[in-house]
């Protein structure tokens, strides 16, 4: 959206159809590097479908999508390596520990190095206040802790884009504040591009550079944050 960064992601007329129902209907937008896009909308507006299409979990019925000049049809593995996704259902295995889950995912992304892995995990665990829980099974963690582990999971393979679907649901005020701080730092320090689909309008207004509002599978409004009047935002729902 800014005039300074290169375009990272381009969606051109993306549609997703289930039978006669359009979950997404001709969505077109583009996003620059190192920016945060907040996707908001009512239930069933198409937020999750958009995140799933961008992460390669669902194929669009029609339309073209280009990320870093590549698309899923020809460069599936490359795109999956540079994208980190948090979906509305956890990707973590409840019966495995934090350490085992992170080791498993770092092996899947071929970034596991047995000499540096422990150090890397200890660093993240300290940053997210999880040092005492590394060897605990996921089932023993609170919702907030699980969400922090999810964030470590997606950071472990050094992605360029983070796709977060409802990352703040079930979290208390302090944990939401902590996540906002972490995401903002990631954008600034690591130059990450972040797309957040959420119901939480306040959070979106706080951290996003641009806001995309979906209504019945269509874009109701897409503009830089400062161009959207926060008192009239619900008008677009």
């Amino acid at each position: 959206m800014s005039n300074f960064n290169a375009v990272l992601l381009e969606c051109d007329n993306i549609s997703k159809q289930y039978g006669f129902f359009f979950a997404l209907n001709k969505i077109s937008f583009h996003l620059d590097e190192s920016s945060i896009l907040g996707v908001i909308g009512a239930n069933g507006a198409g937020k999750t479908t958009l995140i799933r299409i961008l992460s390669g979990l669902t194929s669009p019925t029609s339309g073209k999508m280009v990320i870093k000049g590549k698309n899923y049809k020809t460069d599936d593995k490359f795109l999956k390596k540079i994208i980190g996704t948090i979906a509305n259902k956890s990707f973590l295995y409840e019966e495995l520990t934090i350490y085992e889950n992170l080791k498993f995912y770092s092996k899947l992304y071929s970034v596991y190095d047995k000499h540096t892995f422990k150090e890397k995990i200890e660093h993240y665990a300290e940053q997210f206040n999880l040092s005492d829980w590394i060897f605990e099974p996921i089932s023993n963690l609170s919702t907030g802790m699980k969400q922090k582990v999810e964030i470590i999971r997606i950071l472990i393979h050094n992605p360029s884009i983070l796709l977060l679907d409802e990352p703040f649901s079930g979290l208390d005020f302090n944990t939401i504040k902590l996540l906002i701080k972490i995401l903002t730092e990631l954008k600034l320090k690591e130059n990450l591009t972040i797309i957040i689909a959420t119901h939480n309008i306040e959070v979106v207004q706080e951290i996003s550079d641009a806001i995309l509002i979906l209504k019945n599978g269509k874009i109701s409004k897409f503009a830089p944050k400062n161009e959207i009047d926060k008192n009239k935002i619900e008008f677009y729902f």
Partner: protein
Amino acid sequence: MSTKKNSTKSELTLFVTILQKDIKSEIRQANDIISIILFGIISIFIFSSSYNTINLGVRMPIEIFVIQIWLIIFFTLIFIMIKLFVQEKERGTLDGLTSSPVSNNILLISKVVFCFILLSFIELILVLFSFFISVPSVQILNFNEFLYYIIIGIVLPTLDISICGTLVSALSMYSKNKSFVLPLLLFPIILPITSPIISLNIRLLEGELLSMVVIEILFLVAHAILMFSILVLVSEELLSE
């Protein structure tokens, strides 16, 4: 050449990683396996006690013994199929696998091998139990005959039904009525091999030569290759929405 070798090595590493994760998860949820084994043991008790009540002091004929074992194995397969893809899909962890840069074929093959290992482990316990509880009228096999029975009578059919189970589990994971669809889809796929498996087991336990069961072996091998080919060919469609 070197790139190809490295790619094969990294795919093998991914395969081992997924397999290790599945085995570790399964060990941590031992209750599920214990309940499957208990189901098998209770079934063996019911078969054996029913037979022994009617035929006091008579050893169980091989035919009934083999049918008893394979009937329990087929039921066990349905329990395991739920663990392969259905459970991962419901928990959301399957999305974690499919959104990672792992090819669908590696994912499917690791599930086939996991199903095979789990089924073999359960079979080992059930076959041992049934030999002691059911006391079949099996003649004493020499080492070679015993080895043939294990490899051709048990391992080959187990591999075949593991492939079928993985295929059906992947096919039915998006269905709303999974518990209904799983056995419904499995039935036509395993129906052609039930008769060769039973016949193969009976004849091997009776000590017949391998040359006498070549047709059954070829049929099972052909069925396994066919099912595996279907699994690989439709892997993209199976694991994407």
